[in-house]
């Protein structure tokens, strides 16, 4: 049928990660709704955390799908995930409080269509294809929705297309200074795509370990959160954006240090290279 490429055995079962990822990202996205309830913007960073959780799940899904050998490289799976995800996320965003749930349903429909077409028309004939593409579309949608919610403090469509511009000292509503009107959604799209496709692409091969791959996925997620946190200075207040930036940087440093530790654990040997010091008095 297909040649299996090597992935590490063991670790947490995929179905468990699926449930944690789905429920975790849903709950975390809904936590950004506290912004609307309490009238503040301090809860925006939960959107980024939802994206990180979704990316962890998506990386494990990509690992399952790509272990069958698609022949097109790992990044293509990330591209189709975000491609179907962004449509589902923006479509879902028009439904107010039901946004995250509608997003998941729409993403599942698009993913299922892509999976059925890939298996039955293009004849990939990969057993996990349909399920994997459904999961990846949901992951892509939750990533886009989470990061967009982090940038502007809400996951509702009208909030994403309206902003305020200051002209001659007066604050006027403007469609140009918004997440979608300013094409920030395109930046979010690529930040999510890079984050989802990198981790397994970097870690695959003999000796691949699940905890190391997933730690890299979390690192990529926090790394994508940092630019979004900086972008959010334009849309939400100074303090909430600072909180988001702080959370992203702390998360990134922690996961980066952990990832390096795990890489050293799995490496046969390593050299702690030190910079070559200039000899005294010149060479």
């Amino acid at each position: 049928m297909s040649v299996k490429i090597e992935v590490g055995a063991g670790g947490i079962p995929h179905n468990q990660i699926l449930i944690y990822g789905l429920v975790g990202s849903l709950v975390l996205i809904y936590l950004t709704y506290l912004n609307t309830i309490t009238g503040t913007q301090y809860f925006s960073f939960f959107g980024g955390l939802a994206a990180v959780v979704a990316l962890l799940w998506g990386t494990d899904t990509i690992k399952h799908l790509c272990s069958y050998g698609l022949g097109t490289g790992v990044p293509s799976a990330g591209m189709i995930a975000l491609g179907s995800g962004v449509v589902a996320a923006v479509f879902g965003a028009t439904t107010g409080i039901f946004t995250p749930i509608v997003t998941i349903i729409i993403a599942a429909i698009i993913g299922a269509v892509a999976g059925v077409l890939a298996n039955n028309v293009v004849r990939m004939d990969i057993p996990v294809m349909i399920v994997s593409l459904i999961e990846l579309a949901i992951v892509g949608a939750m990533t886009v929705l989470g990061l967009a919610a982090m940038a502007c403090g809400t996951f509702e469509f009208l909030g994403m297309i309206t902003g305020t511009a200051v002209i001659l000292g007066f604050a006027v509503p403007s469609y140009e200074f918004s997440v979608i009107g300013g094409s920030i959604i395109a930046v979010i799209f690529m930040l999510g795509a890079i984050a989802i496709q990198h981790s397994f692409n970097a870690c695959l091969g003999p000796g691949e370990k699940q905890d190391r791959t997933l730690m890299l996925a979390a690192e990529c997620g926090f790394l994508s959160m940092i630019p979004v946190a900086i972008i959010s200075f334009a849309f939400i207040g100074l303090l909430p954006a600072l909180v988001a930036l702080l959370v992203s940087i702390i998360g990134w440093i922690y996961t980066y240090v952990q990832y390096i530790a795990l890489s050293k654990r799995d490496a046969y040997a390593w050299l702690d290279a030190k910079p070559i010091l200039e000899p005294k008095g010149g060479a």
Partner: protein
Amino acid sequence: MSALGGPKQTGGVQPPTAMGLVISIVLIVVALALAFFLVQMAGLLALVGIIIGGVLVAFGVHFVPVGGAPAAMGQAPGIATGVAMLAAGAGLAGLFGGAWAAPFGLPVALAGGAVGGGLLMAITCTMVNVIYVFGMGIPAASGKVAKDPITGDTFPEYKSQGTEGHGLPFISWVGGVIGGALGGLGGTLIYLELLDVYQAQLPVLLNATVEQIAPVAVSLAGIFAVAMFLVNAVLAAYNITGTIEGPHDPKFKRFPRAVIAAAAASAVVGFFAIALLELVGVF
């Protein structure tokens, strides 16, 4: 054969399953009917344009000489990267060209998109050959055919033993330019159809002028065009499974499968993109 090991390369082309064909036709018809029901004739025509654009993208991808990892090592002809990356590059370049020319009317914009995509591929193919010939010191030789169908150059005496050919023969260069032009044309068509739909609906919905909503309409149409471009390109990539040399490659005969899959996928994703604004304000 990709470095990761692809699905088994069967000699003949496996036709789509009956179920796959029926599902594709049903999906296209249902999407067209729903588009007509929700957005009337304008929606129906826009969706037809989007389906044509998606089919052009998927068809165009088959022309592009994709070498993947083996090409990077000089062991297979083509450009040394994956289908998704090349298609994204050509499509985005085309989209920029087309979007820039959008105010000049449909024919000029479509021509702009095609020229943009074709130009990017022409530059890429030329520079790839410069690197192959002057950097790596390998001549262009196809492994799939004995003679270049256009120039009549013969290949076997230049082909290294143990490789599938190397470099980028002239026929592959021509294929790349045609593929880039078709991709740019398709992507621009999707963008223009979506832009028309949003420019008609957004002013009514938000009670604003066309100029005020222009950033939102352009951004939404652009990101959705990119998303649909990537979904179609990845389905085409799955159809190719790894590497293809261009229009002379036997794998090129597989394109009807990708065309069917792209038509159905574009219909579903395009429907959600067209129906996007129908739910705003309902919840």
